[in-house]
């Protein structure tokens, strides 16, 4: 029996970590968030998650089959895209539009660039940006959470026929004795009505009849699991939330009552979900530690600026997409210095250390410097 010896270059220690494993863990950590979303909004949310994820997977399969794409269905990346996309859409988003969103997420966000690992922008956000541009009315139509009978009855706009306009949810809500304001998101309420929702209510999302996404606390807990198991770098969410909070706090401190307090800014809208799950997408965020801080900081500042000074109530999506676009530049300016180069070499020159007592320098030994010859091939005289 012969023993086969394989000789290879470094690295020699094989870790069990693979793309599939990382992606699968992200999916596991997303499942509680999705479950909470379904608990909030009932079967409409469940149908939305299923349909969007299925359309992402189908699109991925179609493009992978062409043979020009990296990746495969089993690496879970399209599943993540689908779940995240569904979580960013309103629960009553028409299902056929969800199919459009899922397909365009994979087609425009991923397949266009060559598949997994090659995408410049976060696919889920590309899909959302597409449907935001295509169906601006439907994507702004939210419904309050914890409606009675949400597990037996679809939100009427979900079941719109393909290509047809969704049913009016305002009339449906009125029949259930909800006013129109109940279905506005906290950010839209603040921006257009001037009313502020308590940050504590936003943090848990458990208070009834608010148009909010899954609970930020839950997302942070699930994100902490990923960060602790090193499936995600903690620097990016920390930088995003830190810079968004700091910017909001500065504006709040200077501008005063005109602006909401920083906690409202942090816990409203999709900032936590974006910071934890979307900005941290490995293919579209910087790999350098300093670059992660710059990238997260940029996203945080942009989010607050878009929320305050643009016509849109929410700006996380565009902030992250801009951050993705800036990623190659950020990586270029934040390249870490290799060991032995740069600052450390200067430090060594300026440092003084005692020589070995036995050391005799060339000058002391009376050595002569060899004569320099300018003409190498000059014949000797």
């Amino acid at each position, binding site marked *: 029996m012969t023993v086969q010896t394989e000789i290879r270059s470094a690295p020699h220690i094989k870790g069990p970590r693979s793309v599939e494993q990382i992606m699968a863990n992200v999916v596991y950590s997303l499942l509680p968030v999705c479950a909470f979303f379904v608990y909030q909004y009932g079967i409409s949310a469940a149908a939305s998650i299923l349909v969007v994820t299925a359309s992402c997977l189908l699109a991925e399969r179609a493009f992978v089959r062409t043979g020009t794409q990296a990746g495969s269905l089993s690496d879970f990346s399209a599943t993540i895209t689908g779940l995240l996309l569904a979580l960013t859409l309103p629960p009553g988003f*028409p299902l056929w*539009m969800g199919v459009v969103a899922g397909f365009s997420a994979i087609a*425009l966000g991923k397949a266009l660039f060559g598949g997994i690992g090659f995408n410049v922008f976060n696919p889920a956000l590309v899909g959302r940006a*597409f449907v935001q*541009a*295509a*169906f*601006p009315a*439907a994507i702004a139509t939210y419904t309050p959470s914890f409606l009675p009978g949400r597990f037996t009855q679809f939100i009427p706009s979900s079941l*719109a026929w393909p*290509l*047809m*306009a*969704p049913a009016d949810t305002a009339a449906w809500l009125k029949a259930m004795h909800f006013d129109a304001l109940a279905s506005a998101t906290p950010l839209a309420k603040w921006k257009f009505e001037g009313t502020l929702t308590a940050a504590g209510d936003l943090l848990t999302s458990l208070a009834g009849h608010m148009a909010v996404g899954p609970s930020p606390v839950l997302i942070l807990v699930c994100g902490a699991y990923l960060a602790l198991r090193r499936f995600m770098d903690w620097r990016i969410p920390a930088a995003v939330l830190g810079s968004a909070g700091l910017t909001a706090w500065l504006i709040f401190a200077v501008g005063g009552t005109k602006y909401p307090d920083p906690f409202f800014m942090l816990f409203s809208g999709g900032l936590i979900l974006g910071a934890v799950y979307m900005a941290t997408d490995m293919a579209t965020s910087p790999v350098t530690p300093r670059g992660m801080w710059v990238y997260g900081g940029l996203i945080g500042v942009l989010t607050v600026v878009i929320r305050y000074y643009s016509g849109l109530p929410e700006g996380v999506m565009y902030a992250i997409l801009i951050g993705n676009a800036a990623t190659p530049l950020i990586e270029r300016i934040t390249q870490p210095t290799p060991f032995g180069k740069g600052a450390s070499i200067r430090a060594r020159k300026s440092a003084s250390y005692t020589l070995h007592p036995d050391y005799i320098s060339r000058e002391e030994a009376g050595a002569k410097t060899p004569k320099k010859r300018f003409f190498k091939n000059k014949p000797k005289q």
Partner: protein
Amino acid sequence: MSEIAQARTFDEFMEGIWRQNPVFVMVLGMCPVLAVSVSAVNALSMGLATMFVLVCSCGLVSLIRKIVPKEVRIATYIVIIATFVTVVDYVIQAVSLEIYEALGAFIQLIVVNCIILGRAEAHASKHPPLTAMVNAMGMSIGFVIGLFALGAVREVLGAGTLFGFSLFGPNFQPWVVMVLPPGGFIVLGGWLLLFSALKRRKEVRLAAQGGGHGA
């Protein structure tokens, strides 16, 4: 006309429609293609205007190809093209003010359309008038097809209509993005994808046949 000459004329004609389609293969003249293809009517009228200018100016350029000095040929082409564009400009204005306003500056901009200048320089200045006009006709039909393909998709998805006729009833949900500039780029990208997929499939088939037919 001999059979070979007939086949060659047909080849000249088909070149612009399929093998050298200005929109889908050469990707020329993208400015009007993206800008006016919001609706099928706009796209079709833009295509027809371009067709008139292209055929007439190619004929004229070909007629005077031997007396134009090489140094001033581009200026001469521009003057010729501009003349026909002025004609088209006035005709459209007279026929339908609505279309004229929808097309806007892009009628005047036909002057600098690179398909027309490219045909005048690359083909009409080297071929007799009839061949040049047949080739220009094929090219402009190819251009009309390209414009119409974009305009139809954008109008159907963006407004639910085709040539102004409602296709899906009053309850249609328009895709706002399709009538905006990004919609033009996305639809064009979709068509280019389709054409390159067809091309690749053809190449694979040819390779399977033993690499015949030249390349």
